[in-house]
């Protein structure tokens, strides 16, 4: 090699790379989630000093108490910016109409927000009851398994959350959820679901649906804490979970649910 030729020794290479580093960083930063997180709503961030390992949240729903007023679904939409149109619910109320023979008739017009119209069918009615539904915050969540980018996860305080800045909107979690708890948010184009009002519970407040429930159908608290209302609910209620045979280990406990409830 003659001395006049331009050389590319290791040192030169590293040097030139180092000098180009700011340019690379500029391009990479365009795709970094910090950028995206800065734009996203940080309302779900827990307050400073909050220790998720010290909590284990759970909810109880007493079916005997529910009157089907739908205030929980309405409050949830207001609290969590859920689109007002039907089909988008983080929580909703179902009505079960059981005839003496055959399958129950189940409906949920506008999630129960506008109340339920009188049953005008031709079947004899044995009994009816309401079942409020929401994300079951499964310990063994089918939605978490299928998310390709790891945007949905079980937090250390036992709540299943979606990071909307990571979600690509493939809707796999929506299909995988056996409780139908998820939907695609039309504005963010990402999956959305009940968070137990994570922004409220981390500040020591109750979820919006529990707060507004006039009959105390919904009970919220810390599983395993004797002082928590959920302890009493589980101690004295006839407690079950939905679709126990799927082994999803839900954290929403139902009292008084019979085999008709799906």
């Amino acid at each position, binding site marked *: 090699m003659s001395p006049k030729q331009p050389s590319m020794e290791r040192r030169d290479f590293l040097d030139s790379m180092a000098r180009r580093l700011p340019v690379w960083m500029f391009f990479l930063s365009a795709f970094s989630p910090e950028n995206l997180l800065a734009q996203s709503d940080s309302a779900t961030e827990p307050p400073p000093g909050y220790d998720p390992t010290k909590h284990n949240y759970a909810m109880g729903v007493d079916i005997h108490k529910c009157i089907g007023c739908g205030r929980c679904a309405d409050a949830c939409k207001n609290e969590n910016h859920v689109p007002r149109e039907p089909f988008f619910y983080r929580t909703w109320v179902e009505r079960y109409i059981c005839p003496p023979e055959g399958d129950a008739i189940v409906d949920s017009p506008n999630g129960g927000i506008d109340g339920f119209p009188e049953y005008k069918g031709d079947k004899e009615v044995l009994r009816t009851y309401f079942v409020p539904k929401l994300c079951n915050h499964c310990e063994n969540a089918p939605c978490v398994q299928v*998310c*390709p*980018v790891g945007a949905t996860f079980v937090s250390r305080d036992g709540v299943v959350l979606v990071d909307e800045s990571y*979600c690509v*909107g493939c*809707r796999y979690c929506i299909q*995988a959820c056996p409780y139908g708890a998820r939907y695609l948010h039309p504005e963010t184009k990402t999956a959305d679901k009940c968070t137990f009002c994570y922004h409220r519970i981390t500040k020591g407040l109750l979820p919006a649906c529990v707060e507004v429930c006039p009959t105390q159908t919904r009970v919220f608290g810390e599983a395993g804490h004797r002082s928590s209302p959920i302890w009493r609910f589980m101690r004295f209620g006839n407690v079950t979970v939905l679709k126990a045979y799927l082994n999803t280990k839900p954290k929403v406990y139902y009292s008084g649910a019979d085999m008709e409830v799906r």
Partner: protein
Amino acid sequence: MAAAEAKELQQLPLVLGDKKYDNVTRDIIAPVETFPKKLWWIAFSVALTVFGVHMTAIAVVVGTGLGLLGINNPVGWGTFIINFVFWIGIGHAGTLISAVLYVFRQQWRTAINRSAEAMTIFAVACAGIFPNIHVGRLWFIFWAMPYPNERGVLWPNFRSPLVWDVFAISTYLTISLVFWYAGLVPDFASIRDRIKESDAVQKIRKSVYSVLSLGWVGSTRAWAHYEAMAMILAGLSFPLVLSVHSIVSFDFATSVIPGWHTTIFPPYFVIGAIFSGFGMVLTLLIIMREVFHFQDYITIKHLENMAKVTMLTGSLVGLAYSTEFFMAWYSGSPFEGFAFINRMFGPYWWAYWIMVSCNVITPQLFWFKSIRTNPTLLWIISIFVNIGMWFERYVIVVTSLHRDYLPSSWDMYIMTNWDFAILIGSFGMFFTLFLLFVRVFPAIAIAEIKMVMKSPGAKGFGH
């Protein structure tokens, strides 16, 4: 009886018409060396227009959002997933013909493997579009790829079948492309050597084919390497025939939806894929052999063999359908039972019965030799197979979702014009690519045909 038939199969020549090597080269390269006729231009402009509609519709849907489509809350997966599975399935016949039949030394594959492999690649290209445009935020789809990044905890979730899909399909496309291109190299060299540099166009053609043929001279040494490489690539492709559609089936089988959550899904999908792929190969090859006069190369025997594979796989698909019903009953799960009764007699009964009649009943006609050796009837039945296999995916995706666990959220899935535009448009893309292929590439593997034909002058030398 079986021995007599085996003898008959042995003795039927794979190339008809007493060809010499020179005739073979001339016949097969003819479409590449002549200017396309009117028929091709008409077909190509129609395909290109539909392809244009495809791209426009995709741009609008991605720009506006998925609300344009027919998907709703219980049915969150719609035509995009159906089309994805359909196109991936089409590809499988190409790999089966090129790799599995190669490893098993089925020499009749030589006449059809080139176009079947091309079909695979174009079908996978069509399929590859769908999972991307199906997501709500296409611009972040690359987050499903594992690569060193500065995003901290964000890393693909390797438990998700969609991530397995990313690997399965990119591997499949890569191996198929390499195998296809490697096989093309000697044939590109044949085209290159025949070009006379008479004018500027011919000079450009010569340089293009020179680059494509990678300086192939056909030395014995090169052929030895070529043979070894072909066997290695065939060995690599072989498991892909089984794995790719198994992984696609995991997209469904790993979720707990009734009708999806079954262990039969991987073999059921693989067989269905091979079935649909052979349907599409028949559709394409029967037209190609008529238009380009390839009857001496793609003989009735080739068509008959493909018809037999179609009949076998169609019957296996039928077996899978009935096994699903058996398992729904035998498992005792009321949800499974309901899902399958609902498929047959629910609001989408018509889709189910289109599927059964096209996939299970129609291929049974191939028991008759007169039908499986009649190209026109074969072509018609192959169209039914294509329709039936699209509806199979429609039935799987839509009927399981539209009546899920929660009766209060039940809804119907109705395809919108955008769904239709993108579905039909994907056929435009496929046929645009295939029409270009038959004009630019040798549509039959020249070198391989020469290996299996009777040596000119060597009387009695078999294949």
